[in-house]
């Protein structure tokens, strides 16, 4: 472990962290803009040109709001809730390969914070942890509505994690690797993207990702109509802001994960046919990766302003009676196809 390695990783971590925060910040604006355009209006456009200062104003407002901790609340857990939510949201991005390597002089810099060989499992663990933030916050508020929201969040995330895991198993049967970097490298070019071999798996993964991010149509933990805001009823000031931020960072990380697992990550068509140098390929690759991520983030918002919320029993029916059997069928199908391919071709 040399010093340069530390500096390199430290810089990378900082950049990734800042990028996820900035994207989360501007997702809030983008969400309102998208909502506006889909409803034939402009959305916020008063703060700065096209409203680009809106997130700063919102953040400033959050910081200057009075911070209220309810009298009956469990104080330390009440503070721990949003902390866990934001931390788990942020650490997910550690294993995502943002690009190939940059060559600066002698050094080869990998654009990935940690290439662990169980990257997919790590992601899965982080996603599973993220529900604790919501659960603790909801329970510690000492409020019936928050508790209902927390209970819903917990049961929803348990049900959908199963289908999520099963859809991933089918993918791993194809890729034969748990390392995210390895998976992305395998998808070089355009025809090798995993979406072409695992369309059903991707669909299940997508639906479960929506559920894990607590996004519409699965935003039952925070539904306004029944639970007046759900698990974050009692939260005010920046603690509420952190919950919101966590949701948007989650969205960003899931979008990154989806594009890395199914849409080739930083690979773009004809990347070696254009005669570019390695550094240029890396830079364009990173841009391509972010373009894919933004498409997914837009898709998240697009869905949000299209679909209404599920009823709770519909949510459970969909999770247990539709997605899990479908995911198992997908595994079986993948297995059969793999065997046929191995024996006959």
């Amino acid at each position, binding site marked *: 472990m040399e010093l340069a390695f530390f500096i390199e990783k430290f810089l990378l971590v900082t950049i990734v962290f800042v990028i996820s925060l900035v994207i989360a910040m501007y997702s809030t604006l983008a969400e309102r803009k*998208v909502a506006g355009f889909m*409803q*034939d209006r402009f959305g916020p*456009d008063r703060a700065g040109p096209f409203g680009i200062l809106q997130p700063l104003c919102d953040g400033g407002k959050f910081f200057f709001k009075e911070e209220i901790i309810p009298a009956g609340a469990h104080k330390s857990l009440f503070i721990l809730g949003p902390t866990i939510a934001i931390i788990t949201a942020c650490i997910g991005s550690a294993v995502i390969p943002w690009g190939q390597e940059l060559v600066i002089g002698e050094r080869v810099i990998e654009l990935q914070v940690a290439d662990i060989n169980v990257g997919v499992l790590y992601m899965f663990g982080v996603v599973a942890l993220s529900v604790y933030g919501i659960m603790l916050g909801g329970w510690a508020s000492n409020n019936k509505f928050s508790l209902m929201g927390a209970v819903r969040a917990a049961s929803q995330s348990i049900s959908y994690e199963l289908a999520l895991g099963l859809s991933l198993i089918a993918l791993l049967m194809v890729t034969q690797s748990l390392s995210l970097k390895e998976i992305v490298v395998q998808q070089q070019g355009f025809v090798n993207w995993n979406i072409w071999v695992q369309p059903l798996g991707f669909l299940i993964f997508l639906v479960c990702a929506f559920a894990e991010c607590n996004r519409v149509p699965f935003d039952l933990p925070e539904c306004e109509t029944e639970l007046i805001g759900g698990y974050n009823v009692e939260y005010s000031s920046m603690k509420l802001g952190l919950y919101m931020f966590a949701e948007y960072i989650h969205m960003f990380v899931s979008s990154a994960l989806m594009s890395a697992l199914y849409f080739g990550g930083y690979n773009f068509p004809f990347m070696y046919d254009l005669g570019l140098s390695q550094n240029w390929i890396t830079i364009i690759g990173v841009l391509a990766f972010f373009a894919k991520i933004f498409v997914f983030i837009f898709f998240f918002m697009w869905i949000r302003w299209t679909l209404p919320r599920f009823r709770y029993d519909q949510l459970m029916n969909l999770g247990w009676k539709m997605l899990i059997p479908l995911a198992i069928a997908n595994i079986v199908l993948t297995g059969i196809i793999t065997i046929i391919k191995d024996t006959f071709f």
Partner: protein
Amino acid sequence: MEPLSNRKKVLEQKPMNFWERIYLPAIFKGLSITIKHFFKRIPTVRYPEVLRPYSKNFRGQHSLKRDEEGRERCTACGLCALSCPAEAITMISAEREKGEEHLYREEKYAAVYEINMLRCIFCGLCEEACPKEAIYLDGPHVTADYLRKDFIYGKDKLVEPRFDYKKEQEPTA
């Protein structure tokens, strides 16, 4: 019991078919509708920067006109006050003194001319009644205010600003 209008129609509830049950086609339909709206022209008018044009016969705040020499046209005949169905107009007339010919067109003029904007219904009858073409409702919207007394507009707000024709015409001529 006999139904009142025989228009009631009992709809048959059919069980959903396969495509309806998997829900995805409906989602795509919904998504296509929202994306269509995404690219639609937005009817919003960004108000303080962009103003919607008024119609040509819009009736706004009254203005008391001057003639081409800049003299007030009003002769305080009181026909506008008489025609006003809301009784919003009141005036006190005065006689033109020597040396005031450049100020008032007629020998009699309105020393005080007040319109109560809370009473006014912007019907335009004063405009029609005026024999001297002295009052027109061609101003902007009458804005909101805090006190009732501030809605009584006097000559200071109603008489149109002096407009020097000679100066204006010099560059064009």
